[in-house]
């Protein structure tokens, strides 16, 4: 077992029994702060309500759980939804030594990375790449995905392109926003902050964001939405407002989840192989478990544009709108 550095961190280790420290800390039934072997914790610190209805999460869990099962590692999902549950997570993580952790949907201000580094728990961040945490991470190329989406909308003649973003405190939400801005700027289109609305990666807020955009910019001719689930919600709002998709407003999502192909009209989107992200995260974690000294890795998976009816419907505009 790796020994913590001296000082306060040493007291941090539940396995360390300093002389003179009473053993009252040993839990019941003689279990001790148990090293639980063959177990990988999957922590979702920003678990939205309806987590499993979100195809992003169920798909990434599918990738992770199948890759763990192949290695006979227990899939342990921890889904804290509130601050009080974060305390529970902390207790669980410090009182139990699982083999490693996969972290999903971390906000940039999360307390978890510091705890993990201090305690030298093998860990991989999945679905986001934190540059400064010193922890391995895997994600798709969110920035490039946005550039592909905007370039596509520009290529079909759209110029008044709005964006419904994800959480700005998640790297994926932020990178997709930055990619949107960068692609517009590269095309010489002036940025308009009122064309950006946050949908927080949730259906309800995405609906409201679309309504606000229609109110403030009734002449918008395209909207790029940071997730398919939000994009489908935005399309419902557009249809209700009497806008034809894509004739009046073209829509591009992100993820290429099953809901994109099933939507009516079907949704153009950015394909990221979510299941593969989960599987690769497990591979990376297994390397860290085998070699705790291994340097953190960053893996970026490629994305691609998938064109469907929401941008190429029957009435594809022949020329750029004036």
């Amino acid at each position, binding site marked *: 077992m790796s020994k913590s550095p001296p000082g306060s961190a040493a007291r941090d280790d539940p396995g360390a029994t300093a002389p003179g420290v009473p053993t009252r800390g040993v839990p019941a039934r003689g279990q001790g702060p148990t090293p639980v072997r063959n177990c990988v914790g999957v922590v979702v610190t920003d678990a939205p*309500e309806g987590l499993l209805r979100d195809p992003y999460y169920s798909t990434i869990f599918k990738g992770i759980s199948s890759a763990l099962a192949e290695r006979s590692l227990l899939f342990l999902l921890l889904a804290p939804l509130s601050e009080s549950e974060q305390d529970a997570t902390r207790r669980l993580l410090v009182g139990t030594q699982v083999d490693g952790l996969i972290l999903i949907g971390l906000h940039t201000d999360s307390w978890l990375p510091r705890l993990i580094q201090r305690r030298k728990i093998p860990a991989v961040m999945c679905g986001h790449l934190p540059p400064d945490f010193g922890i391995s991470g895997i994600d798709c190329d969110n920035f490039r995905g946005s550039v592909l989406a905007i370039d596509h909308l520009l290529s079909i003649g759209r110029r008044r392109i709005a964006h419904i973003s994800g959480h700005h405190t998640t790297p994926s939400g932020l990178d997709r926003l930055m990619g949107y801005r960068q692609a517009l700027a590269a095309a010489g289109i002036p940025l308009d902050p009122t064309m950006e609305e946050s949908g927080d990666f949730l259906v309800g807020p995405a609906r409201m964001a679309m309504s606000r955009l229609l109110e403030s910019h009734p002449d918008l001719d395209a909207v790029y939405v940071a997730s398919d689930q939000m994009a489908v919600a935005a399309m419902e709002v557009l249809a209700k407002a009497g806008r034809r998709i894509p004739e009046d407003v073209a829509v591009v999502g992100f993820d290429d989840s099953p809901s994109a192909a099933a939507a009516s009209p079907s949704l153009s989107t950015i394909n990221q192989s979510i299941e593969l992200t989960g599987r690769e995260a497990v591979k990376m974690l297994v390397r860290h478990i085998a070699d705790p000294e291994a340097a953190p890795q960053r893996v970026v998976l490629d994305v691609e544009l998938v064109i469907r009816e929401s941008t190429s419907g029957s009435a594809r505009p022949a020329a750029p709108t004036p």
Partner: protein
Amino acid sequence: MPQSDNGPVANGSAGDASPPAGPRSVHARHARPQAAATIGVIVADATTGLFADPYYLALLEGIMAALAERSLMLMLMAPMSPAELKATKALVARKDIGGVILVGLHTDSPLPALMQSLEIPAVTVGHTVRELSNVECDCRDGAMAAVEHLISLGRRRIAVISGDLDIPVAVDRLLGYREALAAAGIAMDPTMEEVADFLADRAHLSMERLLLSHPDLDAVFVASDQMAAAAVGVLTHARKRIPEDVAVIGFDDSRFALETSPALSTVRQPFEELGREAVHVLMRHIAEPHEAPRQVRLKTKLVVRASTVGREGTTAAGRPS
């Protein structure tokens, strides 16, 4: 009321590692349910892919929603191998696990006995153990409703594709089938019963065998929509018209029911409500550890679609009872 479980954590990082202190007696956990911030959920039969199965997803949604309302953390474990089962045991033995919900157990599962030996409040979903409370839908009643529906349409040569008979809910569905046939005075024929383990490819084989042995069958009751979708594929391939030649009814009312062509008549299970009810019953046991185990059965609902009545007349009908 000792605060030692929570105190060190609240004191900040230096103390966050202090293992829980406090009373050591296993009974003490019962006296301090509010100290248990985490509820364990063990899905014991995830062989078909926990996150690919709409049944588990909806059930877990119900559980998570009910836990969130109570500010409890979910700790979900899906053990497959013996090594993983061992890890699961170590995790549920932790003192801050307030209780456990067991899902998808086989009849020979060691988990109910383990929960009892650790004196952890536990509730099963869809698996009756005498010593533990159980929450499930009334599968036998649901299966009867499905087969009675087929009989009411004039079908008499009704086959069944059952789930894995190690799983009690599968047994109940088979018994419901037999009971409905018996009540209608239709003779039972063991060669009309196939077991397919809730897997689509097994159901595919079962349907092929049934068509070979009983080319004149006029209806089939399939114990899950996913298996029924596979059966529909085989029937269509064999040029049987659905429902004119063979009526098909599934069970669950999952997304598979709407993805098949024609859309599947089925028996709707209240998945999310099952999850919520399991949390509700568990919380009662945590608060009242000496209360006797309870059997909670939620009603199913017959959903009539094109696979039994054709394109017209597709309606949802409640089970008359």
